[in-house]
């Protein structure tokens, strides 16, 4: 007899259910990306997800593990998330490289699902950013902004994706623009004030909120991400701790410094809606594997992410601070789990036996 311990009843939750909920929650964001970049977004999404699944399958096969793990949804989710943080202008080989990196070095080498110390999608994104800084900071003009731009038909998109900008008889200058964060960074460096810079950029908070600004595929629409995120929180797939503490910290830091010197420090709303913050707060930082387990640990994690995001965005060389912040806090996760523990019933807070 094999001894079986109580409980003899189960709630019915499963890994697959969790992963597919997150995927479903990301569908609005993916749809916005298609609205912004048309066929190009479709190519990127399918390539990322397809290559991720294929890599996962091959890794599992080569390591002699059960290959049905491919369908637990985690590889697909990694692929989807990776696609959503990539700029639309990246060439096909970079997409494949990133997907393979995310699955192999980000996850499978560490022993597969549940053991990766870093968020695989973000790890791949960081590697790409450091290795190919130019391509990773080139943002295409979204479809709705320039109707005359002949970029987003099926054939041109395909050509652009595989052969580059020359194949579609365009120049980089014509098809690209700066993202709000990058633009602000450059202008601030030249001594322009925040409000002037935003005005020049024709920045609109409403547009940023519903997602009409240039940026990575899925980062654009705060609205779509919020919808997905709140649905996940209502479903208990993710807890409120990380998103709330993360966003609140960024908002508090930004408002504080914005009050001190509004010419140099961007307003909180700008920070909240710009770049990958929403995506990171709801879908990257909440990756269960690489974030702390306890509620209070998650709050600490979120606050840490928030501070680092604001600091790197404001002072660092990379205007996109959110993903660095999350990867940096991923490193601290084991320590947070060790030192920040919930209060045990009948004991005082703190570590004692």
């Amino acid at each position, binding site marked *: 007899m094999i001894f079986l311990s109580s*409980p003899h009843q189960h709630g019915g939750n499963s890994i697959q259910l969790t992963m597919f909920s997150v995927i479903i929650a990301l569908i609005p964001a993916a749809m916005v990306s298609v609205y912004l970049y048309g066929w190009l977004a479709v190519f990127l999404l399918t390539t990322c997800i397809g290559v991720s699944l294929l890599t996962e399958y091959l890794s599992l096969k080569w390591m002699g593990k059960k290959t049905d793990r491919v369908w637990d949804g985690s590889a697909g989710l990694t692929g989807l998330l990776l696609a959503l943080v990539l700029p639309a202008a990246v060439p096909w080989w970079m997409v494949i490289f990133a997907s393979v990196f995310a699955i192999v070095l980000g996850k499978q080498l560490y022993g597969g699902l549940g053991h990766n110390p870093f968020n695989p999608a973000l790890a791949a994104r960081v590697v790409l950013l450091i290795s190919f800084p130019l391509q990773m900071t080139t943002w295409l003009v979204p479809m709705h902004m320039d109707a005359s731009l002949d970029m987003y038909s099926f054939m041109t998109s395909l050509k652009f994706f595989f052969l580059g900008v020359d194949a579609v008889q365009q120049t980089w200058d014509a098809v690209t623009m700066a993202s709000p964060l990058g633009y602000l960074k450059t202008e601030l460096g030249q001594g322009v004030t925040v409000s002037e810079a935003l005005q020049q950029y024709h920045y609109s908070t409403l547009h940023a909120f519903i997602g009409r600004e240039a940026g990575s595929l899925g980062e654009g629409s705060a609205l779509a991400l919020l919808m997905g995120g709140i649905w996940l929180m209502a479903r208990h797939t993710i*807890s409120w701790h990380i998103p709330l503490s993360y966003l609140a910290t960024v908002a508090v830091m930004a408002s504080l410094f914005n009050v001190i010197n509004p010419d140099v420090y961007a307003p909180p709303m700008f920070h909240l809606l710009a770049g990958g913050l929403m995506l990171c707060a709801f879908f990257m930082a909440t990756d269960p594997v690489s974030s702390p*387990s306890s*509620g209070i640990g998650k709050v600490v994690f979120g606050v840490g992410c928030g501070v680092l995001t604001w600091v790197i965005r404001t002072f660092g060389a990379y205007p996109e601070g959110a993903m660095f912040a999350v990867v940096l806090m991923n490193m601290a996760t084991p320590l947070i789990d060790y030192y920040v523990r919930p209060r045990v*019933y009948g004991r005082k807070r703190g570590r004692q036996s």
Partner: protein
Amino acid sequence: MFEFWHKIQQSLSIGSVQSFTGGIVHRNQHKVTASHPIVACALPELFIHPIKQHIGDPCEPIVQVGERVLKGQTIAKPQGYLSVPVHASTSGTVTSIEEHTIPHPSGLGLISIYIKPDGLDEVDESLHPLPNYRSVDAVELRERVRQAGIAGLGGAVFPTFIKLVRDQKNPIETVILNGIECEPWLTCDHQLMIEKAHEIISGLDIILHAVDASKGIIAIEDNKLDAVKVIEKTLADMGLNESVEVRVLPTRYPQGGEKQLIQAVTGKEVPAGGLPLHIGILSTNVGTSKAVYDAVCLGEPLTERIITVSGDAVPKPANMSVRLGTSMHFLLKQCGVESFDGIKVLHGGPMMGELLSTDDVPVVKGSNGILAMTQRNIMRAHHEEEPCIRCGDCGDVCPAGLMPNLLAAHCKENQFERAEDYNLFDCIECGACSFVCPSHIPLVHYFRYGKGQVAQINREKEFAEASRVRSEKRDARLAKELAEKEEKRRIAKEKKEARAKALAEKEAAEQASSEVAAKPEEDT
């Protein structure tokens, strides 16, 4: 409105002040036997009474094989302080005293007293009823509760008399009656409250008197509103609604756990390593309260209890009044179970109950439910373990505030010191963590494994220490013996030498004297 607000609180997992931390809500309670009236179980052909049915020291049989015993007669007397006697459930003959499997996950046995009933059901009347309990001394009440063999009937079977103390340092202010019954399937306490409200409340009154407490609280979950009505009405009839309050709590598991109930009712926490007594609270199950009433007012020791017999493999589930010592096999047959193939028997509820390896096990004081489940249903909960995705759901539902995923990982890697550092021994094994785990990790099993290993390591350490002392004593003894021997040898040698010397001297003297003697001869 209240319900709606509560749902919001639960879905946002914000605990209100008056609630315990963590916990889960069972979507399907499976309370199929709710409002089934209590039926008496038939007399079986054999009773088996294990000599230990409570937490603490085992009893010692005081009857002989072949002896005739009466219902309620003490057949095993307590050994040590933390122990209560065992009584015969009916009149009959002791047929043997030997090991029998008891309801324990190990499937191991314990010395048990076998009684063959004679069908007469003659009662031993050595315990006098004390209907005027208010005039009885608290010490006598306590002794009575002990003699009646009462231990917590909620499942923990902690001897009840221990709790009934009047401590000057920690006076008990509040007595909480636990009518929560938060496990799915079980309904025995629910039905007991409906049918025996008067007895339960009288029992509470006895306990209040025994510990000189001023306030009683009967805690009931909001899925048993009919019981609340009955209890409230009875309280009003008995004129006790001043001192005793009915507290309706939202249904949540594991609210029936003593520590959790105290937190939910009073907002206080039992300090780690302490007892409810230390914060002036006594908590006991409604069944125990009824047993106290029986023991004091009727002079009946604990020989039967209410059990829910249910499960998806039971055709006629019921709440039954069962004599202790009845075989579970017999009980399930009474409820219409024909074939035991592909059926697993659970002793207790599905969340904390034990899976029994055989159904030939007697009902004991701690049996609050017997669930016969189809194997398929049971195995659905014991899905193959998948890697932990560290989602932290287990920590969110943990009523003890632990981090079950890390704890289990350390137990799995045999890092027990780390596990203890993560407060392994504060785990109450409620099973909420395993219930919500998306990876189907048997977390509670890992904790039990860890606790067992730690206990074993400590035992081994103690044994090694004792062995070292014995070995060192032996070495010292041997050294002493050796030294003594040396000493003796030395003394012997000295003596021998002395003797030799003396001899030599004597010889010399003799020689000398002979020489002296010879000299004159020479001279002559």
